[in-house]
């Protein structure tokens, strides 16, 4: 019987049970990195909170620069191999609307950029992305590689299936083409 494994802030969870579902609830400025190796049936989800660990106490799952490599290490330890891993990412929103602007506004977009940078360093293509905007997202990674994103405004959307795609892109939402959100 499969389980729903909740992936909290700064956590990384990896499973090789096809019935499990990995869930990151209510991502705001955080970014969820979903990764899947179809051949090895290994799925992993990282719930990343901040872009860069420089100047912070070590907390490997919290920062993009440490969490992204750790996600793949953990998956490979369970039998996945880098060449088979496919990736989808979601989150990095800017929830609060301010009248002004300032550095405190940019954590979401900075998280998204940092995650993309790390994936690029590892030569991993992102098959589907749902980033930015001002909406919170719940991300589900199913044991068969399906990635589902839920938001309050547009409900549930199956972003992609990391199990089926062979390099073809899934949906890529950006703030400019994302469906308008009404509450």
């Amino acid at each position, binding site marked *: 019987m499969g389980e729903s494994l909740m992936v*909290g*802030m*700064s956590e990384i969870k990896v499973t090789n049970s096809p019935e499990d579902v990995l869930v990151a*609830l*209510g*991502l*705001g*400025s*955080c970014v969820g990195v979903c990764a899947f190796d179809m051949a090895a049936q290994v799925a992993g989800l990282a719930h990343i*909170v*901040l872009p860069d660990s420089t100047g*912070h*106490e070590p*907390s490997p799952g919290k920062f993009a620069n440490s969490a992204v490599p750790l996600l793949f290490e953990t998956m490979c330890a369970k039998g996945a191999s880098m060449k088979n891993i496919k990736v989808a990412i979601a989150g990095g*929103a800017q*929830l*609060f*609307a*301010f*009248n*002004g602007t300032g550095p*405190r*506004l940019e*954590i*979401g977009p900075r998280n998204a950029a940092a995650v993309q940078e790390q994936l690029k360093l590892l030569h991993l293509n992102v098959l589907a992305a749902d980033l930015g905007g*001002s*909406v*919170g*997202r*719940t991300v589900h990674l199913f044991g068969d590689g399906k990635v589902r994103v*839920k938001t*309050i405004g547009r409900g549930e959307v199956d972003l992609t299936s990391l199990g089926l795609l062979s390099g073809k892109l899934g949906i890529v939402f950006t703030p400019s083409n994302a469906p308008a959100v009404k*509450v």
Partner: protein
Amino acid sequence: MALAASELNDIKMDTLKEVGNIGAGNAMTALATMVNHTVDMSIPHVGIVPLSEFTQMTGGPESLAVGIYMAVDGDAPGHVAFLLPYLSASCLADQILAQPLGTTTTLGEMEISVMMEVGNILASSYLVAIGDMTGLNLLSSPPAIAIDYTAAILSTIATAFATLEDQALTIVTHIGEAAGSIEGFFIYIPEPGSLSIILRALQMEG
């Protein structure tokens, strides 16, 4: 010098609880005046608890909530936020706009502006009371609002604003209208460096 929240003894924790109590008491009075009803509050919860632990407050991590955030500037910088379930926000809007309960089903521009003003008044009342108690000058920034999943709002407050080491100290008070249609949570997060400033002002620390 920054005081790590983990170094706080019981007496200091109790003092911070009292700080939260005084602040929330004044905010509660302000809210009662706005809605013209009695408003109750809980004893503040003071602790080094990640904000994500509080997602049950408004009905679970994926419940729809309204969050109003303000930065605290002045002598002891920090963060305040008022979080309430969407339904409570709608009821609150009705009461403030003197409409029958149930009139507001969707928060539009007008209701959002009302919410921001409510947040502003509550935060100011909270901070004025703490300022009077400590002699510190505490000011709140203009409010910012988010309407989204509780978990998304709380995690955003925790990360984007509290520059959260997971050790941030939070002072959380539940505020509810006696009639039961409105409830919300007031969250106060002093910056780590501000804890000793507040305690020193209360002569709890040399």
